[in-house]
């Protein structure tokens, strides 16, 4: 039976992992991810989840152990953040290149130095091109739902790719929210047993991870590219089935109060909820502004985004990461690239803010929107605006 509970989001994610009846969990502690794996440990020792729990000695080994277990056909989960994701970097490419359907929750956090345990999207952006499916979430309910959906997407025989489910550190990982925990039987029906097509087993020897000389490497990369691009179809299908079964609909690009708006704000992750409140307030002032929430970061939803932005004059993008010495906000940069071929195309104003756990309040968002509109009109010689920085 579906239960409505008040629960810390990290704990709810662990409950979702239990509902997914995961087989192997390899873990290494890092703030702000630890509550997820601590609660999974409790579930395993209390016999509520029948899984092998491997408390490894580093994040590199966490994902490496996942490579091994996913290769045997076991449903495999891990979670990490920040430096942990950095240490995994090398293994991330192996997971996707070898088409191993691992699910990983990333509690997004800044990257050192200076040391910061607080949230932003710097860690995600360093693994942007690692070939994983990447889904962003705004609240605890979305984390639960998309953790469950992630397994169905990853293990789909047309996909067979690892999935990162992003959860903003602290802003999401450590807050207590009302959450609908889906019914176990319903999840079981939604999520069939993992049926990895060519598992490691002596009954049918396979060689995995052979090395590719130049005559085949490009084709291997292209096959991966096609698989990742085509996965969008499956992702959308899974979200549609989920909506039918559980009544909550997710889309690659989601809109909020965009009707009639010539100016749109674009955000990713938990700040979108604050942005919604700001949009409500600004609409009350008579300005017609709406919000675009980018849910699917990889594969990048080019068509959906172009469609959502049709007919607008100004797009204001808030990034929680900085492409240092480059174009500023990575999301803004990609959105610009996606719209460059469009005619007409909107003015794009890029803001970078909310770094290393600094909050962006409703008032801040109002400021961003208003300043963004001014800059769109007057123009700016800067690639991006560093919001709230003391120079």
């Amino acid at each position, binding site marked *: 039976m579906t239960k409505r509970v008040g629960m810390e989001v990290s704990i709810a994610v662990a409950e979702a992992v239990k509902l997914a009846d995961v*087989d192997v969990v390899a873990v290494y502690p890092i703030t702000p991810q630890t509550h997820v794996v601590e609660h999974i440990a409790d579930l395993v020792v209390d016999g509520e989840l029948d*899984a*092998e729990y491997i408390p490894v000695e580093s994040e590199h080994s966490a994902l490496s152990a996942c490579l091994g277990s996913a290769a045997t056909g076991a449903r495999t989960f891990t979670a990490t953040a920040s430096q942990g994701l950095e240490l995994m970097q090398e293994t991330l490419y192996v997971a996707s290149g070898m088409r191993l359907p691992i699910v990983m929750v990333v509690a997004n956090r800044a990257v050192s130095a200076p040391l910061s345990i607080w949230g932003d999207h710097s860690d995600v952006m360093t693994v942007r091109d690692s070939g994983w499916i990447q889904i962003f979430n705004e609240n605890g309910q979305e984390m639960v739902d998309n953790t469950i959906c992630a397994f169905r997407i990853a293990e789909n025989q047309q996909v067979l790719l690892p999935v990162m489910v992003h959860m903003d550190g602290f802003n999401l990982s450590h807050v207590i929210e009302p959450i609908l925990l889906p019914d176990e039987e319903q999840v079981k029906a939604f999520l069939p047993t993992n049926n990895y097509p060519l598992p490691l087993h002596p009954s049918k020897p396979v060689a995995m991870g052979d090395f590719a000389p130049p005559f*085949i490497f490009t084709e291997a990369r292209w096959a991966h590219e096609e698989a990742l691009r085509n996965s969008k179809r499956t992702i959308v299908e899974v979200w549609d089935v989920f909506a039918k079964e559980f009544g909550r609909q997710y889309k690659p690009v989601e809109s909020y109060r965009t009707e009639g708006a010539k100016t749109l704000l674009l955000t990713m992750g938990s700040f979108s909820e604050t942005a919604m409140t700001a949009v409500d307030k600004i609409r009350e002032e008579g300005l017609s502004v709406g919000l675009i929430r980018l849910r699917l970061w990889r594969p990048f939803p080019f068509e959906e985004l172009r469609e959502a932005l049709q007919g607008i004059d100004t797009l204001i993008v808030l990034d929680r990461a900085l492409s240092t010495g480059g174009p500023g906000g990575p999301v803004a940069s990609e959105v610009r690239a996606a719209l460059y071929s469009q005619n007409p195309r909107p003015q794009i104003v890029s803001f970078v803010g909310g770094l290393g756990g600094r909050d962006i309040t409703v008032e801040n968002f109002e400021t961003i929107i208003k300043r963004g509109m001014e800059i769109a009109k007057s123009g700016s010689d800067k690639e991006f605006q560093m919001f709230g920085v003391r120079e």
Partner: protein
Amino acid sequence: MQNLNVFAPRLLEKAEAFSPGHRACIGCGEVLAVRLAAKAMGKNLIMVNATGCMEIIASQIPNTNWNVPWIHTLFENTAAVASGVGSGLKVLMRKGRIPQEEINVAAIGGDGATLDIGLQALSGAMERGHKFLYICFDNEAYMNTGVQRSSATPFGASTTTSPAGKNSFGQFSWKKDMPAIAVAHNIPYVATACPSYPFDMIRKIKKAQTFDGPSYIQVFSVCPTGWRTAGDISIRLGRLAVETAVFPLYEVENGKYKLSMDFPKLKPLTDYTKPQGRFRHLSPEVLAQIQEKVLQKYDELKAKTALDEVKP
């Protein structure tokens, strides 16, 4: 012993888990060791292979020499991958998704993958107690990348990153004692082996698989290319390494040391170093220093061994 030689082939498994046609150098001691190890481990095996010569010479798309399920991922994570493979099999058997049977998990890597870059992952996997066999094929340097020093390179050996020159006699540090590090993890079985003594090696590998936990075997693997030796003396060099006590053969079962063979009189170190280009530059003084260290280490090893278990 002579009779045993005549009948030796009959004592070996005929089937080749590692088939011919690989690209290893002529006289490669490591590939011989891998082939023997694969024979010893049998068909019910999943092999996890670190990056290195053995991956490069045996797994170029679209070919493979492996007749058992095989996975290669990276250089330093082999033991961690093996722990994942073992855990995956365990839970799938428990949940009835694959048949309940004994499937051996083995991880193999060179000395660089084991003693240097992969030491942490190996330490973690040993400490956690996964049931798997880790075999380090020790050819005493990074051979796949062109003979660079590792922490397994012996004192005085000239490599491309510890070259002998006007101000250097080559490798400046003593070989890391990896078997002792493995023993310190309180794992049930640690051994050293050499393909020049195939039956001893096969026995140890088979024995290692019987323990319900991690086991570690370090296999001395002569590398004609990296050591600058003739390709037809690899077996002899392996024997000389043992007969001079440069690489003594022993096993450690649940912490108890046992020499696999002892010699009434050890051969002099120079019998072993002389045919090798990597030691050719060494002065008599440095050779004497190494000889002294070899004997000292051997005495230390013998001291750990129960005397009554030593067979001459």
